[in-house]
């Protein structure tokens, strides 16, 4: 069962020496941090490694958290830098996110499941698949805006860019996402967009 205390209250407890309170913070944010890490890495194992690394880094520098912004916003900025460092280390080509393997996988699934696939699998599943094909920055902006419920200003703060730039990037990311969905689902896309 998760704690009813606010993030700030839990942080204060952790700083006072109650390490168990940090487990509550992890439980509270792990799903989103993992999803965000997955958007960057495109791989569950790597995403877990990034998310774990992110939480450990956050614990290490918890005392430096200013409490002026939301804990989640601060956490997202750590995910972003951690993921970027991780990807650089793994020398992934982030420019070729239209990864052939990912796309082939999607096409195979489409042909195997037939025309009623949209009824069998959830819309969320298709959206997540399409997001996985986007550039990491686009995927992260969409995830932060919709899943993280972050404002344009907060996203800007997490990614280190201006709110107006976030607005433009979000618009372009949504357009690209629509294109991916149209490409992946062809006729069935009308149900989603």
């Amino acid at each position, binding site marked *: 069962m998760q704690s009813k205390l606010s993030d700030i209250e839990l942080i204060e407890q952790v700083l006072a020496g109650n390490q168990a309170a940090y487990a509550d913070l992890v*439980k509270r944010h792990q*799903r989103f941090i*993992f999803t965000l890490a997955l958007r960057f890495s495109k791989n569950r194992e790597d995403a*877990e490694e990034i998310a774990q690394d992110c939480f450990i880094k956050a614990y*290490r520098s918890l005392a430096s958290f200013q409490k002026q912004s939301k804990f989640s916003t601060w956490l997202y900025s750590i995910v972003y830098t951690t993921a970027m460092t991780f990807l650089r280390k793994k020398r992934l080509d982030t420019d070729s996110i239209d990864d052939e393997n990912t796309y082939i996988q999607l096409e195979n699934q489409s042909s195997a499941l037939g025309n009623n696939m949209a009824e069998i699998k959830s819309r969320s599943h298709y959206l997540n698949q399409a997001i996985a094909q986007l550039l990491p920055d686009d995927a992260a902006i969409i995830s932060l805006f919709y899943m993280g419920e972050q404002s344009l200003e907060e996203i800007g703060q997490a990614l280190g860019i201006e709110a107006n730039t976030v607005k433009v990037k979000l618009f372009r990311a949504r357009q690209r996402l629509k294109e991916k969905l149209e490409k992946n689902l062809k006729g069935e896309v009308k149900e989603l967009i």
Partner: protein
Amino acid sequence: MNTIEERLWNYIDGSCSEEERKAIDILITQDEAYRSKFEELLNFDSHLAKMGMDEPSMGFTFKVMEGIRAEEALKPLHARINKNIIKGIGGFFIITILFFVVYMLATTHIAPVNLSKGLSNGLKLPEGIKMPDLKNYFNKPVLEAFFCVDVVLGLFLFDAYLRRKKVSKQILK
């Protein structure tokens, strides 16, 4: 100049000005193209908002907490050692020394002394003062007890060190 889609997204996100919002309100009610595009984008937006999140593995929180514990365990021994143990050992020695000093002073027999006589006899101790025989205090059982406590304290410290080392090794595996 913003495209229709861009203006509508700003309208949906609530990031447009009041004037712009009013203008788009009118366009949506009067212009069929605007209305159809607006409905399409709104539908897309609502699907995005309902999008599910991925779940990490079952033991994710445990792994994070273990990672934190492993980091703590990897800190140098001098940084991790419990200061209370050091204080306890220090306190034990101070109390032991104080006990012996007080005991010696308490058991030393001091009788009234003729100082002038004492000085004339050189640096000899005054007649009334009898130095206690140290053999009475540092006898075998006392020394054995003292060394036993030292050995126990030493073993306790060594055990704590080995336990930490073992835990950090298990975590790193």
